[in-house]
């Protein structure tokens, strides 16, 4: 533990700490451009110069490890002069076009120029200009502004795992780009905009939209996958203008996926802004009273066995519980939250969550992926595996379709029956798992949505138990969900009660006329024809599949428009916060259900969000622990049996469009066009 003195303060730091990090520990700000906490250290911008006793010249603090007895000064004449010199050089070729630059107001260069810039230029020569590069539909480039910090190169290489950015040419002719002018094909590419300290890489969809000081910032949580990335929603005048990541080391660190970041333009399209009733095959606008009365009539007019409810992937815990309370109170047993037909159920919490936790991936030394493409099903989980891989000593084995995961893998093939063989030790891979110190398996949600899903689930449990994945101090059994609502719904038991129908049963019943009323709580993944002649009540925010089939539409709120609870794949309950109001006459979802309970004459026992949240915590203590994961006790789950020989298929065909919001997003459509369609054409040979 080296001891050193910084500005007269003595401190002891962990070995390997850089001088810059030590300064940060003391709260001393050191300006920097190239240094980024999560990236490797190239020390090429020289902005972080500090003085070190006995050194002949200022040192780059970001790259200098703390040494015993070092004496550092960060606030001397020399330091200021040195930093001013660096700043002057940086500005020589910088266009100083802040008034027309989207980074203005949140630009590191602008901020630091205030501290270290000269009030006029001394450079009378011609500035250089650099041609802009085409990096695809998400990232806009104005390369003349680039200060060659190489953060974008390191981000692509290290975090995103797609080595496409580079610096070509040299000296004055050095340029940052991809050389081949290809779009950056990574589900994490939007983070380039955040890592670029200047306005060279900015957000294309957000171009010239707003200035940072005009925005209202709301801290919230993403729901477009089950990772629960922490986000900041920036709004102005009731409109979501952009979404940025918010630091949460346990979940998304400081990154978010491109869908999380850019799908929000879908919030403005195809919105359900008022109740609608279908009459003579056509939807007509209706008032809330009328709509709720109709819903009440329909629900009262059918026997409880003839009523069913299906919750969608974006449903929040509050509305799930309210709907369960309401319908359950009426004796309705056919509740379903597994739109994909998954066999997963609530028998054991450890069986349906990501027990190791996302941050826990960093402790693993072996990862076993079963029927999943984490890159598309939980981009940040994949990023975490890659991070672990870069630390060295991680091996990854895949059972299922082979995809490029940005790290090397061992492919076991795609024979699902191997799961049984590994569990009973007859497959040699069992030895690999047993030999690992902290092995971890990730079971894809698609693997559980097969007809033999329960057997797959049990087989994965058997593998975990037989190969030492579940121990006193370590639980390496993980399910990677895609639906933000799934774990919450399982926690609340939004599942068929005794005698109730599951998804297949509901759809079958609807076809046969045995189910007369289906209540869809934002369920959009089921084709319309499956509902037969049932009366479909759709509560949700987008005119997507569910609403197209609906006989009655109750307009709800999207995740940016409500204070709601979601439980991520780890079992971590988190709150979204209302950033804008629901559109038109739409209402927060639990309130709609509460109002409906009134119309039914069976008012639910909560009138405020607090009361409802209290009820949530009573229903399952997981909801009382916000942003925390309580380890779940191991228990039996699944149905032991032989896994069918059918190969695993991946559930996500297009990362960019997986739900009602991203399907309505023009930006996501562009991404599909740019990144997914060409790949599909390549595979199927239908291009050209």
């Amino acid at each position, binding site marked *: 533990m080296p001891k050193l003195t910084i500005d007269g303060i003595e401190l002891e730091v962990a070995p390997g700490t850089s001088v810059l990090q030590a300064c940060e520990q003391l709260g001393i700000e050191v300006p920097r451009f190239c240094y980024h906490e999560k990236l490797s250290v190239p020390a090429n911008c020289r902005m972080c110069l500090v003085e070190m006793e006995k050194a002949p010249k200022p040192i780059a603090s970001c790259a200098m490890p703390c040494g015993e007895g070092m004496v550092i000064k960060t606030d001397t004449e020399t330091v200021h002069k040195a930093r001013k010199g660096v700043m002057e050089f940086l500005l020589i070729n910088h266009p100083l076009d802040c008034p027309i630059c989207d980074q203005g107001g949140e630009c590191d260069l602008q901020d630091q120029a205030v501290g270290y810039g000269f009030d006029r230029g001394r450079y009378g020569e011609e500035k250089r200009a650099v041609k802009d*590069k085409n990096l695809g539909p998400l990232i806009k480039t104005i390369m003349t502004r680039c200060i060659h910090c190489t953060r974008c190169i390191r981000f692509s290489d290290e975090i995103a795992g797609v*080595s*496409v950015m*580079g610096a*070509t*040419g040299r000296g004055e002719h050095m340029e940052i780009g*991809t*050389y*081949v*002018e290809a779009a950056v094909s990574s589900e994490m590419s939007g983070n380039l905009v955040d890592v670029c300290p200047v306005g060279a890489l900015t957000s294309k969809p957000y171009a010239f939209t707003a200035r940072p000081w005009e925005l209202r910032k709301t801290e919230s949580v993403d729901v477009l996958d089950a990772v629960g990335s922490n986000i900041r929603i920036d709004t102005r005048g009731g409109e979501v203008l952009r979404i940025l990541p918010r630091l949460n080391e346990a979940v998304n660190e400081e990154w978010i996926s491109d869908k999380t970041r850019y799908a929000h333009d879908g919030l403005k399209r195809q919105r359900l802004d008022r109740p609608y009733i279908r009459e003579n095959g056509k939807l007509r606008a209706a008032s809330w009273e009328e709509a709720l009365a109709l819903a009440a009539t329909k629900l009262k007019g059918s026997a409880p066995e003839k009523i069913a409810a299906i919750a969608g992937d974006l449903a929040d815990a509050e509305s799930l519980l309210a709907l369960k309370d309401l319908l359950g109170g009426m004796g309705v047993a056919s509740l379903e939250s597994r739109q994909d037909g998954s066999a997963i159920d609530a028998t054991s919490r450890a069986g349906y969550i990501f027990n190791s936790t996302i941050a826990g991936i960093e402790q693993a030394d072996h990862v076993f992926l079963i029927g999943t493409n984490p890159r598309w099903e939980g981009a940040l989980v994949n990023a975490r595996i890659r991070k672990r891989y870069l630390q060295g000593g991680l091996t990854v084995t895949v059972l299922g379709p082979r995809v490029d995961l940005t790290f090397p893998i061992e492919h076991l093939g795609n024979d699902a029956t191997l799961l049984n063989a590994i569990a009973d030790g007859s497959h040699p891979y069992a030895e690999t798992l047993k030999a690992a110190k902290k092995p971890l398996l990730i079971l894809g949600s698609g693997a559980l949505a097969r007809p033999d899903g329960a057997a797959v689930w049990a087989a994965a449990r058997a593998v975990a138990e037989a190969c030492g994945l579940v121990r006193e101090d370590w639980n390496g059994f993980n399910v990677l969900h895609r639906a933000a609502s799934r774990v919450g719904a399982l926690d609340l038991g939004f599942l068929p009660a005794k005698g109730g129908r599951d998804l297949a049963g509901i759809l079958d019943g609807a076809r046969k006329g045995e189910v007369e009323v289906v209540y869809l709580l934002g369920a959009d993944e089921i084709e319309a024809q499956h509902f037969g002649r049932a009366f479909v009540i759709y509560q949700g925010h987008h005119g997507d599949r569910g609403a197209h089939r609906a006989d009655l539409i109750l307009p709800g709120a999207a995740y940016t428009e409500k204070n709601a609870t979601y439980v991520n794949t780890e079992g971590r309950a988190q709150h979204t916060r209302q950033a804008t109001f629901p559109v038109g006459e739409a209402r927060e979802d639990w309130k709609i259900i509460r109002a409906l309970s009134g119309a039914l004459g069976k008012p639910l026992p909560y009138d405020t969000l607090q009361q409802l949240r209290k009820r949530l915590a009573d229903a399952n203590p997981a909801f009382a622990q916000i942003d925390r994961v309580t380890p779940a006790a191991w228990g039996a789950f699944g149905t032991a049996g032989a896994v069918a020989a059918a190969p695993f298929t991946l559930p996500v065909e297009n990362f960019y469009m997986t739900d009602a919001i991203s399907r309505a997003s023009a930006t996501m459509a562009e991404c599909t066009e740019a990144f997914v369609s060409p790949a599909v054409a390549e595979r199927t040979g239908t291009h050209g």
Partner: protein
Amino acid sequence: MSASETPAGPATFEFTADNLALAQRIIAKYPEGRQASAVMPLLDLAQRQHDNWLPRAAMDYVAGMLGMAPIRVYEVASFYTMYNLKPVGKHFVQVCTTTPCWLRGSDEVLAACKRKLGIGPGETTADGQFTVVEVECAGACVNAPVISLDDVYYEDLDGPSTEALLDTLIRGEKPKPGPQNGRINSAPIGGPTTLIEMAQRNGVKPASQE
């Protein structure tokens, strides 16, 4: 720099059998897992095979061979000026214009090229026979000014000797390499000026003596 500023070149590139064998020998020089270190000699080899310039297909080919991301190869190829990313003439005339050569008359050399070939630095003759470029110190300042041409150095040039040199090439002959003014290697012009006794013992006439 970006690919759009250079000609597309052929769609594919492959080493000839001989070059492939040579490439494998080069790669084998580096320790296991460090084969990317062979990128520069391999690019050079590819350039030699491909009329002295590197199309993108060749860079991609080298990247594939060494297991590197293509951009890492583009970075190397665009950093070093000795890699040509655009086609060049059959004879690649590299005129050194760094200070020692310039003091010794590299302007004259360039002017002679212009007279003889009608092209200035960075240009290629219409018949594709010659490209003239300016380069930084070629490392032969002792015999400045210098032209490096098709892997051979021509030294101690002036206007007329440069023209003569180019004439020889135009006739399709190979000029005599090295100093063009009668100097032996980099010995003093006219004979030795030091170690005179030793020179005399060996029967060489020193410079200062008639």
